[in-house]
């Protein structure tokens, strides 16, 4: 899964970014076959994590994956998303013009900032986005601490 190339808006700053993109396209784009992406520090799938009062919510961009391609585990305070991404390219009889979408096995684990209830975790998949809702255990939920005044 390629990192999405971000094309900035028009205007002077956008123009500078576009120039930089052109430089990178020339150096990296052709060799790596993509719109100028760099492979250093590349993780899959890209994740967004947010924290509400009683949940951690993790969104993962996994276009093209179905339920049977994905495995989601919660163990201790660690969430693991792994699976297999099938490519679109047939084996033989094709002329390849462009190849930007990676395929293969992947596995990514992140550590959540507090203990969670793995048995009550829910995951939904729609439009190529996996959303995992992980409830915090009672200990992790914020608790109001009573302040006692000492005179």
């Amino acid at each position: 899964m390629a990192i999405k190339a971000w094309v900035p808006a028009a205007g002077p700053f956008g123009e500078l970014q576009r120039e930089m993109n052109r430089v990178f396209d020339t150096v990296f784009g052709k060799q790596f076959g993509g719109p100028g992406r760099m492979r250093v520090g590349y993780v899959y799938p890209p994740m967004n994590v947010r924290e509400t009062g009683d949940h951690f919510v993790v969104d993962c961009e996994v276009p093209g994956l179905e339920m049977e391609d994905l495995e989601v585990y919660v163990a201790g305070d660690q969430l693991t998303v792994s699976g297999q991404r099938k490519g679109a390219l047939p084996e033989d009889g094709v002329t390849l013009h462009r190849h930007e979408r990676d395929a293969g096995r992947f596995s990514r684990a992140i550590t959540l900032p507090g203990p969670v209830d793995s048995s009550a975790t829910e995951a939904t998949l729609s439009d190529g986005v996996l959303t995992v809702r992980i409830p915090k255990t009672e200990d992790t939920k914020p608790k109001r601490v009573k302040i006692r005044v000492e005179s």
Partner: protein
Amino acid sequence: MADTVSVPVEPKHDRLEPPESHFVPATDIYETADELVLVADLPGVKAEGLDVTLEDNVLVIRAKPREQPKASGDVLLQEFAAGEFYRTFQLPADFDTTKVQATLKQGVLTLRLPKSERLKPRRIQVKVE
């Protein structure tokens, strides 16, 4: 059996670029004896947000992400954002735009363009699986 003709498919950066910032969808393109197939990643996109046009051999893909309720809570990690997708491709040969098939499944657009004589340009209907 017809020989497979190998032709380059080049993107058209110069014209038709929209003024706003946008994401460029990762795309695979391959060609068989009978058709050109284009597969593009458009995570978070539903059929109603997707617009695909083919005119004068220029393919334009535009997509808006789905409407989402405002996310609550504190952001701990942000590695991707929602935004418009946009990409154009200059296709090498004439395609019959009435026979183009477009399907959208789990955020992936697959376009199949059978090779044939060019007819009038028109909007391509997207079928959701």
